[in-house]
């Protein structure tokens, strides 16, 4: 009942087609992660190039060329992924491209990297959203409960996503478009006023500036490259659309590719616009107030538009997690179908979403949030390594794809993807070398560990498949040595029915089993058994501490020793009164349920439930 209220009515498989999303909702679902990086990518660059031996002036001089390089890289990656979408319309992005063209090893590296990134995306986005919420003066008191607040947000996002991609997309589209609109106004208005000479620079505050100097200093190549790799976080989430192509309305590939182009244009222009605006307005990197907020105040003042900007920023930072919710379960399902993850992850739930994957993501991100006390900023450097690893593998895989398939225009495809592979490969090297000590080493440990897990799971499935192979000679009916035990709680019509059923099995051995608390109890049941003249021997096992399960298991062990049986069938008369989960039902079948659960794991033991209905006969529930 609660599930239906929260998640909605079950959807039939035939409704799958209606769950597909259009370009507008698709942009909100699959691009909120990428677009949200416009809120912090410029600041991330400044935090590297304007501090240390450098200065604010020198950092701002370098900002625009770096932003231009990042935007160019984005254009290459977007173009490459558009090709991936058309070549692999069933989705899966880097994992599938690598699997089809580079082999098992690279595909597992891509898959593990992406899964780690999606978990990090949720943890970091939620953490950033909570930080924005507790920054609101009237809500500062919640700062000490940031973990609880983060977990509440995860539960809300999880519930919305369990309702379906279409519903969560509709729900979260408004904040995404609000953010894009208000940011576009900020950039356009700010640049126009700045170039018109109506907008002064932001007054420099030496107390709040995190760096050493306002001007002068020196900036080496290493710091420039490190700044570039920091700005490259703007590209995180770009691959999301290529992973989720089947979620789009038909023609899915064309709609996904158009959405990818739209996302690239929005992300590239806004990121570059914010960087140019920063170059004009001279905000300074500070932990007191974000670069974004400084520029918002400078352009909008402290009026309603500034407030809208801040609220929309908080919303998009939180909703970046939604992209991971859309992609992680889908990727898990593809990897699970290849037997590298538990097969439950390949199942769609009754709302036609991969519910197990959604819950898995929520639990993993929630655990990270708790482990880091709700402050997951330290995890940001971990992103870039995984993202650029999967980018590089995907582009390289596409080069192989074009050379193998040789479709019309394949040479152009090779050129685009080879450029993409080289560019993202270089960025990977830069990120790994410049941010190694800041956490980029972690994926080097985590990704191989996940791959080892993938392989162990696949090995298990292969072993099971081999062990289950059947030969024609094995399927011929054969006579079993069969023992049947009917469990008796007290004598009632249900027991009579169960005994009738037991006899119909024509077993080699048949017995009724009663677990007694004491001698008086045993004598009473023995007396009843005699009065009813049951022709089935009654066995009584004493259990002074009323441990039903262990007593029954002990008796079955004794039977195993007594007779060389192929199979033991335990018949449990099941009292049915009312609905399956009604209080009456639970009251009567509590011990039977626990016993059944225990026996389901016992070797060579068939557990059979014979229902006994109490009350007037009616139609089947």
């Amino acid at each position, binding site marked *: 009942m609660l599930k239906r209220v929260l998640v909605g009515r079950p959807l*039939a498989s035939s409704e799958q087609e209606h769950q597909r999303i259009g370009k507008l909702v698709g942009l909100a679902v699959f691009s909120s992660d990428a677009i949200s990086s416009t809120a912090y990518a410029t600041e991330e660059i400044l935090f590297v190039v304007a501090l240390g031996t450098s200065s604010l002036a020198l950092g701002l001089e370098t900002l625009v060329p770096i932003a231009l390089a990042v935007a160019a890289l984005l254009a290459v990656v977007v173009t490459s992924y558009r090709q991936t979408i058309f070549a692999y319309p069933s989705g899966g992005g880097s994992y599938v491209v690598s699997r089809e063209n580079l082999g098992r090893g690279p595909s597992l590296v891509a898959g593990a990297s992406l899964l780690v990134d999606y978990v990090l995306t949720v943890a970091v986005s939620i953490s950033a959203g909570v930080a924005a919420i507790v920054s609101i003066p009237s809500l500062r008191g919640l700062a000490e409960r940031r973990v609880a607040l983060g977990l509440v947000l995860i539960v809300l996002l999880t519930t919305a996503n369990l309702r379906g991609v279409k519903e969560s997309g509709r729900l979260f589209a408004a904040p995404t478009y609000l953010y894009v609109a208000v940011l576009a106004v900020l950039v356009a208005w700010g640049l126009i006023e700045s170039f018109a000479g109506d907008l002064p620079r932001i007054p420099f505050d030496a107390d709040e500036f995190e760096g050493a100097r306002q001007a002068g200093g020196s900036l080496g190549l290493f710091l420039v490259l490190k700044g570039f790799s920091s700005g490259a976080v703007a590209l995180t989430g770009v691959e999301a659309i290529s992973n989720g192509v089947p979620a789009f309305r038909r023609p899915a590939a064309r709609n996904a590719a158009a959405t990818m182009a739209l996302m690239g244009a929005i992300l590239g222009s806004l990121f570059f616009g914010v960087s140019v605006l920063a170059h004009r307005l001279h905000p300074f990197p500070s932990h007191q107030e974000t670069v974004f907020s400084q520029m918002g105040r400078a352009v909008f003042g402290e009026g309603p538009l500034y407030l809208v900007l801040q609220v929309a920023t908080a919303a998009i930072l939180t909703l970046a997690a939604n992209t991971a919710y859309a992609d992680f379960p889908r990727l898990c399902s593809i990897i699970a179908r290849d037997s590298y993850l*538990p097969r439950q992850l390949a199942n769609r739930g009754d709302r036609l979403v991969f519910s197990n994957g959604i819950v898995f993501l929520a639990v993993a991100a929630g655990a990270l949030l708790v482990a880091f006390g709700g402050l997951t900023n330290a995890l940001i450097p971990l992103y870039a390594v995984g993202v650029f690893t999967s980018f590089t593998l995907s582009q390289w895989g596409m080069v192989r794809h074009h050379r193998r398939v040789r479709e019309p225009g394949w040479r152009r495809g090779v050129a685009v993807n080879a450029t993409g592979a080289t560019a993202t490969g270089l960025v990977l090297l830069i990120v790994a070398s410049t941010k190694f000590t800041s956490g980029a080493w972690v994926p080097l440990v985590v990704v191989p560990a996940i791959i080892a897990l993938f392989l162990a799971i696949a090995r*298990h*499935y292969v072993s099971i498949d081999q*062990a289950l192979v059947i030969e024609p000679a094995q*399927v011929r009916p054969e006579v079993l040595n069969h023992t049947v035990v009917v469990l008796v709680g007290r004598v009632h019509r249900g027991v009579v029915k169960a005994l009738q059923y037991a006899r119909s099995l024509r077993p080699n051995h048949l017995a009724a089993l009663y677990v007694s608390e004491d001698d008086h109890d045993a004598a009473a049941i023995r007396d009843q058994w005699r009065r009813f003249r049951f022709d089935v021997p009654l066995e009584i096992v004493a259990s002074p501490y009323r441990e039903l399960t262990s007593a029954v298991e002990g008796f079955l062990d004794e039977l195993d020793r007594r007779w060389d049986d192929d199979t033991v069938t335990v018949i449990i008369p099941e009292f049915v009164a009312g609905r399956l989960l009604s209080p009456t039902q639970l009251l009567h079948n509590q011990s039977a349920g626990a016993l059944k659960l225990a026996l389901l*794991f016992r070797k060579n033991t068939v557990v059979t439930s014979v*229902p006994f209905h109490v009350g007037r006969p009616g139609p089947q529930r």
Partner: protein
Amino acid sequence: MTAPHRPGLVLVLVGAADRRMLPALHLVPQLDGEARALHVAVDPEQAAALAAAWVQLGLAWLPLELAEPGGATVAAAVRNLVVREAAGRPRVTVLVPELDLRWRWQLLLHRGCGREIAWHLQGLRRVVTAVLPVPVDLAGVSPGSW
């Protein structure tokens, strides 16, 4: 209540043509009534492969029924079918195979479809559900290049 006008029915649930069927196939001859194997055809290709294997394995003595899930989950589809079949029969016995793995953690890697189906069939009138463990011995199995 009208008297049963159809014989009892034994339904053997089958997911694939593998050893999971064995305990049920060995038990069927001991049970009274008409017997039938039932596969819920979620994946039409898998269903076709099962039908072909059924013939190859010489299982013609046990008719195989392929049931369309009709948008329902496997467990719900089985329940719907069993409810229909139970009408006018003295009893329907459903044999549900379930893997019997050595380590409990290995259950995490399997869907537990059998247990889920058994749960869905609980309490249905004239329906007896038997969960049959299928022992899997991985000791002598070599997963090859894996």
